[in-house]
Every structure is written in C-alpha cells, then in structure tokens.
C-alpha cells in the first residue's frame, strides 16, 4: 500500500518539474502550464497530508486552489492573447522592450 510519503514524493517531483519548466522553457504557454503543474503538485500534497492528519482542512484548501487556478488561467490567457495580438509571438525572449 502506498503511504502518505509516496504521494509526497510524487508531489515533490511534479513540483520540481513545474519549477524547472518555468525556469527553462521560453514559450509563455508552456511556462504557464508548468505553473499550473506547481499548483497541482501542491494540491496532491495537501490531499495526502489531509489523509495523514485525518482532518478536512487540506481538502477544503484544494477546492479553493482549483478555483484560483481556473481564474488565473482565464486572466493569463487573456493577457497572452492581448500580447499575441500586438506582438505575434509567445516567446518570452522576444519580449524585451522593458530593460534596465
């Protein structure tokens, strides 16, 4: 039987994949997906800990995070669409008007 710490390992790995993705990838949409991966890693971790402690706080937290993530997606996509309409690129390195 997998115990709580197995789930924590998976969550930690997912979280690291998310962080590396944001730091390494240069496509805004992909970076964005990696951020969602980070949030979901935290969700998995919360659920597993909720099981460990036998209280529901962690699960309630996850509901809130799901909603927040959805709202973030909506606003983020809108921002990216506005940028693409003006710039025609989703590569973050071409966004370089603002420097120093």
């Amino acid at each position, binding site marked *: 039987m997998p115990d709580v710490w197995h789930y924590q390992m998976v969550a930690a790995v997912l979280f690291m994949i*998310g962080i590396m993705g944001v730091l390494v990838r240069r496509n805004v949409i992909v970076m964005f997906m990696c951020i969602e991966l980070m949030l979901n*890693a935290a969700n998995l971790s919360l659920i597993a800990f909720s099981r460990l402690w036998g209280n529901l706080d*962690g699960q309630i937290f996850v509901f*809130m995070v799901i909603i927040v993530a959805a*709202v973030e997606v909506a606003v983020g996509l809108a921002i990216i669409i506005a940028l693409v309409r003006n710039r025609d690129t989703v590569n*973050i390195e071409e966004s370089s008007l*603002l420097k120093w």
Partner: protein
Amino acid sequence: METSVLEFTAPELHFGTISPLLTVALGAVLLPIIEAYLSRRKSFLSRPVTRVWIGFMLSFISTIFLAIALMLTLGKLSVPQAEVAFNAAHPMIAMDGTAHFLIATILLSAIMTILVSGRYLADVGANYGEYYALVLASVLGMMLLAASTNMIMLFVSLELMSIPIYALAGFRRLSVRSNESAMKYFIIGSFASGLMLYGMALLYGATGSVGLAEIGTKFDPESVLHLLGAGLLLIGLTFKIAAVPFHQWAPDVYEGAPTTVSGFMATAVKVAAFGALFRVLSLALQPGIESLYGALWVIAALSMTVGNVMAMIQRNVKRMLAYSSIAHAGYLLIGLIVPGSGGYSAIMFYLLVYTFMTIGAFTVISVLAKDHEDKDQIDDLAGLSVLRPFLAFVMAVCMFSLAGIPPFAGFMAKFQLFKAAIQASTELGDSSLLWLAIIGVLNSAVSLYYYLRIPVVMYMRDPEREADPDSMAGFERLVLFVCAAAVFVLGIFPHDVFVIFWDVDVIAVVSEAARSMLP
C-alpha cells in the same frame, strides 16, 4: 444505506465587524453591472452617454464605496479594541487594530488612485470602465490579506489581490509595453504563488492545521519540513513586496504598467503584503524566528543596497521609483525583524507615510502624460518649475521625503524605524541589528544622490519644450495637495495629527495591538 450525519451548527456571524469589507465587496460586484448598463445606453437622464462621462460616473461611484468603507474603518480604529471575531468558532480573519490601520492605508491609496485615474486613462486611450471594478476587487483582496490569520484565507486573498492587478498592469491593451508588463507580472506572480502554496502545503503537513496561530504552537524550528515550508511561504510573500533577490520583476512591471496602476501597486500591494508578512512572522513562525533571522537580515540588507544602487543609474522616473520601492521594502524589513512591538509600530507609520509620498510622485508623472504617451524620462522633467510650478513643488516635496530629509514625514518614519532597531540592539546586546541600522543609514545617504537629482533637473535646468496647456483635473490637484500636505504634517506632528482628528493616538493603539499579538 445509512448516511453519515455531519455534526454542524450554524455559526454566529457578526457582520458589523466586517462592514468595510462588505462595502467594498458590494461595490466590486455592482460596478461591472453598472458599467455594462451605462455603456449600452445612448443617453441617461436626457444626457448623452460618452465614454468620458461613464468613466467619471464609475470613478464617482467607486470613490463613494471606498469612502464609506474608509469611514467605517476609521470609526472602528478610534474606539478602543472591541475584540469581536466575525466567526468566533472558525476564525479566518482578525479585525484588530493592526488590520484596521492597514486597511485604512490601503483604502486611502485606492481612493487617491481612483481620483487621479480618470483623466490619465482617457489621455492614454484606455478609458474602459472595468478599471474601477478591478481596483475594488483588488482592494477587497488586500483588506482580507491584511487581516487574514489562516493559510486558506491568506492564499485566496493574496490571489484576489494579485489577479486584478495582473489585468490592471496590462490595461493599456494596445500598448506593447503594457502587455509585456502584465505578462511578466503574471508569470512571476503566479510562479511566486505556486512556491507559496507548496510551502503552505508543507506547513499543513508538518503541523496538521491551517490556522496561523495553531501552526505557531506546533512549529518546530529543528525540523527540515517545517523550515522548508516556512521558507517557501516567506519567499512567496517577499516576491510580493519586491525584496531582493525576488525583485527583478518590479522595475519592468512598474515601467510598463499605466502610471496610476504603478502607484497603486507600489503602495497598496506593499501595505497588504507587509500586513500578511507581519501576521505570518508573529503568529505562525514566531518559534522559528531565530532560524529565519539570518535569512531575513540578509534580504533586508540586500534590498536596501541593491535598490538604492540600481536606482542611481536609471533614466526613467518610473523605473527609478521601482528601485526606490525595493529599497524601501528593505528598510521596512528592518522593522519586521526587530524583536518587540517597537519595530511593528514603526512599520505602520512608515507604510502610511510611504503611501502618501509614492502616490504623490506617481501622480505627478501621470499628470505629465500627453498624447497617448507617458513623459516619464528624467529629462522630460527639465525646467518643470517654470512650466508647471505646482507639479514641480509636489514632486520635490515627495523626493525630499523619500530621501528622508527633515522635516518631511519620510525622515520621521526612517527615524522611528532605525531608533527601534538601535534600541533593541542595545537592550539585547545584539550587534547585528545595530549593523542593519547602520547599513540603513548609509543607504539613505546614498539615496540622496538620485532623489535630489529630480529637484535639480526640475529647478536648475531650462525647459526643453513648450509649456503644455494645464490640463490637470481638479481631483488631481486635490490628491497632489493632500499628498504634499500629509508629508509635511506627518513629518512635523507625527502623533498629534491622529489625536486631533479622532481623539485617540492611532499609533499608540496600533503599537498596543502589536504588543498584544506578540507572545
């Protein structure tokens, strides 16, 4: 099949304690509907409906909501603490003296921002009515953030604050700079909230509770899991206050965002995030404060130094103010790590003063915008004392105050902060706090160079262009006057002001509240 019966009793709710929050929430819900209704009408009360008129109406309505909330908050601030929780059975927020003071500061910042936004937005061609609803939604998040004592509320309110601001940063949607600014802020901001959320998950796993106070009773500074969670949570919050090394986004975002939004971000977001940091450190992480002290010390010292040094080489006023806000985050962090309540009450006063000086400076820049373009290079200010004497005067006052020159309020604020650090260091015999205060004083000296460059350019150089027609709206004049006056008055009578207006020394109330929160 037998259904499990949940044990539940309806909690007793005290809506009176959260009346300012309810007012702003109602405004945030109603404004989009009013905007959509007005923009579908050809005429309203036999008056033709134009974009400018809608903008004016919406700013008027939102100011009324914010002003009512401010009145309610000030009323609560002036009565001695009646400790009634909104929901005593499951406390998520604490509407105490600290929260009320921070909320009042946030509301002041929001009101001033909204009053100066109308003409600026029309000028840069972004006069959409959603602006006001977004500001109100964000203010609601900030108010909750400053009061939250629970990790769930902390996360949700932080996002409620940030998400409208991502949209506001990109509000000039035809300007590529604004788009880029919004995108950077969005990516970095949500990355930071991802880190923070994972930290919260680890803290929950380590202690089994989401309430900050319960976490404080179980926090074990020896355990790696506890410290990792605390560290990630703090990283998420330091991103929001733009402290080094998590500051890279601030200059880009402040430069690209509409100027009024930059002023709002620099002040209100910082106030709310410091409120959250204050609660997290004093409630949840108090047992581990010694393990985190070193890291916070380094962050404070680095923020002051990097912020001030980088500000010296800027040619854009908005970027310069962004680096200056990073430096001020460093000064404020000194107050946060000073043990005892002296540091906390110094922070409260500093945040209030900082709000007035920064909104004043950003408002001057926003007034200068012309023909869909920001005039935000330092060279654009040349000879402003001849062209627009009032603007030049207010800008000079704000710069002197930001630099911390007596008798302006910025001096009083810094003085209290450094005094608290030095007092604590002599009491505890801990020289590291003394060193931090010394670094702070040295940095203030360095900052004179770039702050004073602005008055020098405005007063000593000849104007390079023709005088603009004075298109300032009455509200902008009012806000600039209030900022300059507040900077003078708070500098000369820092405590008396509050006594005159509300028969109570608010700073004393807040220090008392801060003291009562500490173990």
